[in-house]
Each structure stands twice: as structure tokens, then as C-alpha cells.
């Protein structure tokens, strides 16, 4: 009876196609994942039948799958929204309206990004702007079908493009001069 180490050595060398006495036969770069498993655990019987999982585990896995699928498909279908890369502190313009909407139903919203909340399907952006002299904050869900496109207007708008923003949420701007967060001109 061959020992485990010998069996592994035989298996490893034969599958890589190199003679047993070369160092390359034992290198990990030339290995497939199945061979690596054998090297770690040895040759033992594998489970053939599908593993039984309790309802709770299946439910959590299913929920993950459903949410992940939707997020992926939404991102693939709307490159205008998900292709533009923006960070906290940038000035952004969003075009909101249904696909079949007429011209007067489509809205353009501008604002400074005060914070981004990344919660899967509830991925949202908090915008602040001064509209008709009134500071206005609005949270917009990026997975909403009403959102058509996102456009980056200016990076690091809060510091006029000179400094980088070093915070995740810029709530302190609510207590500052509203001119700092004004993107629309009137």
C-alpha cells in the first residue's frame, strides 16, 4: 500500500506531464484547481449528491441571487447612469423622466453630492442645490426606471476643484454658506 504522500506525488507528476524527479512537477503554477485540492486534502471520496441545505440557508441564498441579478441587469441596461463615475463632493446633473415621456415631463436636476448610500437595489445619492434662492436636498434612487442619465459637471465642486474631498458624507455643508453648494445659476 502506498502512503498518502506517495499517492499525491504520483498523481501530481502524472497529470502535469513532467517526470517525477523535476522540481517543476511540484510547482503550483502548472496545477489545475482539482489538482490543487488533491495536494491540500489528499485523495478522498467527494460528495456526488447535491448537498442538503436547510430552508433558512436556501432562502438567504435565493435572496442574494435575486437582488444580484436585478442589480446586474439594471447596470447593463443603463450605461448612461452606471457608466459615469462620480464621487462625493462632485457636481452632477440627472435627467429624470419615463422613456415614453414628452419633452415637458422630463426634468433636469443638478446638485452637489453630499453622500452616496450603497445598499444594493436602494443605491441612492443625496443631492443639495440652491434653487430660486432656496436650498433643496433630494435623495434619488439610481435603480429607479425614471432615471435616464447621469452627467458629471465638475469634480470636487465643493472646493472649486483645487482640493480633494476627504470625507464620505458632507453634512457639515448644511451649516455653511449656501453659495458653496449652489450648482444652478438662478
Amino acid at each position: 500500500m502506498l502512503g498518502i504522500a506517495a499517492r499525491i506525488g504520483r498523481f501530481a507528476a502524472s497529470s502535469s506531464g513532467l517526470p517525477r524527479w523535476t522540481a517543476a512537477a511540484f510547482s503550483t503554477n502548472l496545477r489545475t484547481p482539482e489538482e490543487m485540492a488533491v495536494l491540500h486534502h489528499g485523495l478522498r471520496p467527494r460528495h456526488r449528491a447535491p448537498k442538503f441545505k436547510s430552508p433558512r440557508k436556501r432562502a438567504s441564498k435565493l435572496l442574494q441571487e435575486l437582488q444580484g441579478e436585478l442589480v446586474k441587469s439594471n447596470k447593463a441596461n443603463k450605461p448612461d447612469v452606471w457608466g459615469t463615475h462620480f464621487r462625493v463632493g462632485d457636481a452632477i446633473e440627472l435627467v429624470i423622466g419615463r422613456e415614453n415621456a414628452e419633452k415637458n415631463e422630463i426634468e433636469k436636476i443638478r446638485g452637489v453630492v453630499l453622500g452616496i448610500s450603497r445598499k444594493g437595489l436602494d443605491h441612492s445619492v443625496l443631492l443639495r442645490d440652491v434653487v430660486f434662492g432656496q436650498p433643496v436636498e433630494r435623495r434619488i434612487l439610481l435603480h429607479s426606471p425614471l432615471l435616464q442619465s447621469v452627467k458629471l459637471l465638475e469634480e470636487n465642486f465643493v472646493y472649486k476643484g483645487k482640493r480633494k474631498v476627504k470625507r464620505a458624507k458632507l453634512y457639515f455643508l448644511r451649516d455653511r454658506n449656501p453659495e458653496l453648494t449652489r450648482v444652478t445659476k438662478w
Partner: protein
Amino acid sequence: MWALRQSNALRKAFDSSFKVRCYSTTVRLFKNDDKKDIPKYQTINNTGFSNEEIEKILQEEEAKMIAEQKARFVESWEPGMRKKPLQSSFKLEEFEYELEPEKHLPRWTLLDKRCGALAIKVGMMPVFDEWGVRHPCTVLFMDQNIVIGHKTMEKNGYIAAQIAAGERKRKNVGKSVLGQYQGFLSEEENPPYLVREFRITDESLLPPLHSQIHARHFVPGQNIDVSGISKGKGFQGPMKRHNFGGMPASHGVSLSHRAHGSTGQCQDPGKVFKGKKMAGHMGTERVTTQNVRIIKIDRGRNLLYVLGAVPGNKGHFVEVRDAVKKPLWGTDKVLDAIDRPPLPTFEFEEIDGSGTAHEVFMPLPATDPFAPDDEEAA
């Protein structure tokens, strides 16, 4: 009074016309009733109509009112006669059904019950519809619902269907329970996780034995009742358990900010009544949420997307039944406005060839719900 009626009639007549922006005003001239020759009230004509036109309009309105009163008057009325026709129904279909009940299918009423289903509460996620409205939905997964047995009036005294759902390891199921599944379990299959009964009103509504109940047993847009075992909260005080008010946090209250206060009266009755609300164990009891709407059905994966929250923890089984109070059959809110659900259960021969769309949505409103109302816009 006549002057007031005159101004009211004018108001009615002139509201719809474009001529006038202000009404005619009535002015009270004198306080005393002694001066009988001089009129008490005088109307000032601010309207765009002349005095003759006003009189003409007023006469027409009066004639209309008199004609209405006359139409109501029933000549030669006798006690027991009906003055107005009896209206028992407002739909043509219901009139026809009342005339010839043999020719139509018997109506599906609130008293009729069909089989329900068992589902696993998977979790909550938002569902956006075509108008852009976000519905917070709970996902219910109908995991292999198979009809195991029937209960009939002859044998058991009531009518019900036994439904088994889920899977369990064979080693965890005792022999006495495995014996119940003798008929339909093969040696490789796993026995079900749990078995529940659903009451039915008629034996013809019993689904066939060993058939599966799919998500299409339910219709998108209908209301359902979901029953489950609620989340356990442990030993809780009366403020959380029974919504008691508690006492102020300051102002001299000593050591009883969240207590239940008095538990009864004095020497008479001299005891605390049974059932007095006090602190104790809360949660882990059967709770039913009623009139929960189905937003979307995933036919391929047997999923129900249901509006709102549902009792219980994720990964636990819940009972799903048609709503007892407001199932919305026959209304526009149900897909195709059907007047009854698929009976006794959905049959696979009825598949319509739309193989690509495995997700079916509830019917959406015709107008954009986000559009402003016409009055506000104007």
C-alpha cells in the same frame, strides 16, 4: 328668503358662464320692519347680464325646481306601493344572473374558500413598476407544495386539503411520520419539511392528490392573508407588549417610568382580574396579516412578491390563503379582472405560449401616478 334663493340661483347659473367674475350682491337697507312701503333688501347688479336676462334665468331655474317636485309626486299612492324603483344591483351581468341562474356559473362569493399554499419567507426587496413607483415587497418562495391528503365530510366531518412543503433530511424524520408519505415518496426523495391543512367549502374544489400547487395558483393583483409565527421578542414589559403609556421621565416619578401602574380596584372586587395585561413573553405566536397584495409572480421560480411585511423570520414557513375580507375578485386591480381564482388549482395545460416572460406583474393604473392633478396644475 326669496332674495337669498335668488342670489343662490344666480350663483349656480353664472358659475359656468364666462361673462361674470363677481356675483350680484344683496344689501340690507333698514333694520325696522315698520317701514313696509320701502323694500328691506335691494340687489345691486354687478354681473354682466342685464336685469331682463337675470329674470329670465331665474324663471327657468324655478320652473326646473317645480318640475322636479312634480315628478316625485306619485298619484293615487296606496300604503305598500313603491315610490322609487327597487335597485338591487348596478351591473348588467348581475341582473342576467338573477333572471336565469341556471345558465351562468355560480358566483364566487366571500364565503367560498379554496386551497391555500405554504411558502418560505425569503426576505424583502424593492420592486419598481413601469410608472417608476417603488413597491416594498416581501418575497415568498413556494417550495414544492404537494397535496398529500384529502379530508371529506363522510370520513372526517369537514372538508380540507393536506399540503406538504419543503424538504427535510431522511434521518431527521421518524418512522411514524414517514409512514404518512408512503404513497408518493420514492427512496431517493427527501420527505417534506411540514404538513398543513387548508379548509375548503366544497368537495369539488379539492385539488387532485399528489398534484403540485404552483405560484400560478394565485393571481397577480389579488389580496391574500399570510399567517406565520411572529418573531420572538422574549420577556417584554407592558409598554412594548400592550402599548401602555408609561409615566413621565422626571417631575418626581419614583422608580416606575415603564411600569404598568395600578392593577385593579380596592377591597371590592379585592382581586386582580384574569387576563390583566402585564409583562410577559412576547412574540413567537401565530399572527395573520390580512389583505396583502400580490405585486408580481415569478412563474419559473415559484415566487410571490407581496406588498409590505409578513409575520415571521426569514427562512421560515408561512401559510398563504386568499383574502377573507377583500380578495378583489372582479375588480380592475386583478389581472384580466377575473371574477374567480383558478379552481381547484392551476393546471399546466392552461399555459399560454408566452415562454419568455416568466414574471407577471399586477395591472398598473392607466394614468401616471406621479403626474400632478389638473386642478393644482391650473
